[in-house]
C-alpha cells in the first residue's frame, strides 16, 4: 500500500514539475471541443451524447498513452526491484483513473459552455462521467503498457483498444441517455453494476498479466 502511494506521489510530482504534458492534454481537450463546436454548433441531445463519449475516447488514448512511454528501460527496472510489478500497475491504474476523471469533468464543462446544455439531470450525468472516465482509463492504461513494450505509440493503442472498449462505450451511452430526460429507465442499476463488474475484471486481468509483460 505504501509503495502504491509513493508511486502515485511520484507520478503527481512528475506532472507538477513537467507541466507541459498536463497542459498539453488540457489544450488537446479544449481545442478538440472547440473544433467540434465550429463544425457542429449545438447539436441535439442524441448527437451531443455520442460526440461527448467519442471525444472522451480520444482524450483517454492521448492522456494515458504517455504514462508508460515516459519511463525509460532502466527506471522501469528500478521500480520493478523496489516496488514490484503489481504495485506499479495498480499505482498507474489509480493515477490514470484520477487524471481521466479530471479531464472528463473539464471536457463536460467545455461541452456545457460551447455545445449547449441538453442535460435534464446533470448530477446523474456527472456521476456517469466519473464512472466512464475511470472505465476508459483502466482499459487504456493496460493497453498503454502493451504498446510501450512494443515500442509503439498511441496509434497501436487505438488499434488494440477500440474493439475492446466497445462494451464499455455502449453501456455508457445507454446509461447516460437517461440523463437527458426525466424518465426512469428500468434496469439502470443493472447497467451500472455491469460496468463496475467490467472494471473489476479489467483491474484483475491487469494485475495478473502485468508481471509477465515486464519480465525480462
Amino acid at each position: 500500500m505504501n509503495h502504491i502511494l509513493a508511486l502515485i506521489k511520484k507520478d503527481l510530482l512528475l506532472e507538477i514539475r513537467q507541466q507541459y504534458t498536463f497542459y498539453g492534454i488540457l489544450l488537446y481537450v479544449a481545442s478538440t471541443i472547440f473544433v467540434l463546436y465550429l463544425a457542429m454548433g449545438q447539436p441535439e441531445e442524441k448527437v451531443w451524447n455520442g460526440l461527448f463519449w467519442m471525444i472522451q475516447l480520444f482524450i483517454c488514448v492521448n492522456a494515458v498513452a504517455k504514462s508508460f512511454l515516459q519511463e525509460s528501460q532502466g527506471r522501469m527496472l528500478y521500480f520493478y526491484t523496489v516496488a514490484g510489478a503489481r504495485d506499479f500497475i495498480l499505482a498507474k491504474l489509480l493515477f490514470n483513473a484520477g487524471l481521466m476523471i479530471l479531464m472528463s469533468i473539464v471536457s463536460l464543462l467545455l461541452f456545457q459552455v460551447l455545445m449547449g446544455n441538453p442535460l435534464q439531470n446533470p448530477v446523474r450525468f456527472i456521476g456517469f462521467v466519473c464512472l466512464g472516465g475511470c472505465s476508459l482509463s483502466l482499459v487504456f492504461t493496460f493497453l498503454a503498457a502493451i504498446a510501450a513494450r512494443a515500442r509503439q505509440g498511441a496509434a497501436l493503442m487505438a488499434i488494440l483498444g477500440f474493439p475492446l472498449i466497445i462494451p464499455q462505450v455502449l453501456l455508457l451511452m445507454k446509461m447516460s441517455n437517461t440523463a437527458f430526460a426525466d424518465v426512469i429507465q428500468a434496469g439502470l442499476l443493472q447497467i451500472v453494476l455491469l460496468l463496475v463488474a467490467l472494471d473489476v475484471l479489467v483491474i484483475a486481468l491487469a494485475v495478473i498479466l502485468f508481471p509477465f509483460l515486464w519480465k525480462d
Partner: protein
Amino acid sequence: MRLQWWKILSIILLLYTFIAGLLIPLPYETAYANSNLYESMRNFFFHVPMWFGQLILITVSLVYSILYLRKPNHRYDIIATEFARTGTVMGCLGLLTGAIWANYTWGAAWSNDPKQIGAAIALLIYIAYFVLRNSMPDMDKRSRVAAVYNIFAYFIYIPMIMILPRLTESLHPGGKGNEGNPGLGGSSLDATMETVFWPAVFGWTLLTTWISTLRLRVRILEEKKHSA
C-alpha cells in the same frame, strides 16, 4: 501423410453434413409457416458451425497463450498463433455466410445486429493481435507480449458477446424484445435438424484443427530450416 482417425472422422462428418444438410426435410413450422426462411434455413448447418469453430479455436489459442506464460516454450507460441489464425479465417467465413443469409432473409447483408457487431469486433481484435505481433522483431518479447494481449482480449471479448445481445434487439433467433439471448434460440432447433447440426459442428471443428496442425508443421519446419 499422417492420416489419423480423427481426420477420417472429419471427412466422414463433413460428407454427411453436405449430403444430409442439403437433403433432409426442413421443419415446416419454422421454415415455411412462421417465417420467410424457406430453403435458406439449410445455411444453419454451415453458418452456425463456423462460429462454434471460431470460439473453440480461439479458446485453444488462449490455453496455449496461458501455457506459454507459465513456461516459455516457443512451440506453445506457434500453436497459439496458428489457432488464432485459423479461428480468424473461420470468423471471416461465418461473417460471409451470415451476410449472404441475411441478404435473403432480412433484406440486407448488414443490419447492425448485435451478433454481427460482435463478429466484426472479434475480427478486429484478432487482426490487431497479428499487427501487434508483427510490430516486434525480438522473438521472445513478441511471444510474451502477444500472449498477454491474447489473454486480455479473450477475457473482455467473452463478456462482450454476452452483454451486447442483451442491450439491443436482435434479428437472430431468440433476440425478440428485450430478452436478447447470446446463444441459440433453443426452440427453433428441432430434432431432425439436431441430427445434422451437431455432427456438422464436430466436422468443421476437426477440419479446422487439421488445417491448424498443417500450418503448425510448416512453421516448425521453416524455423528448423532457418536455424540450421
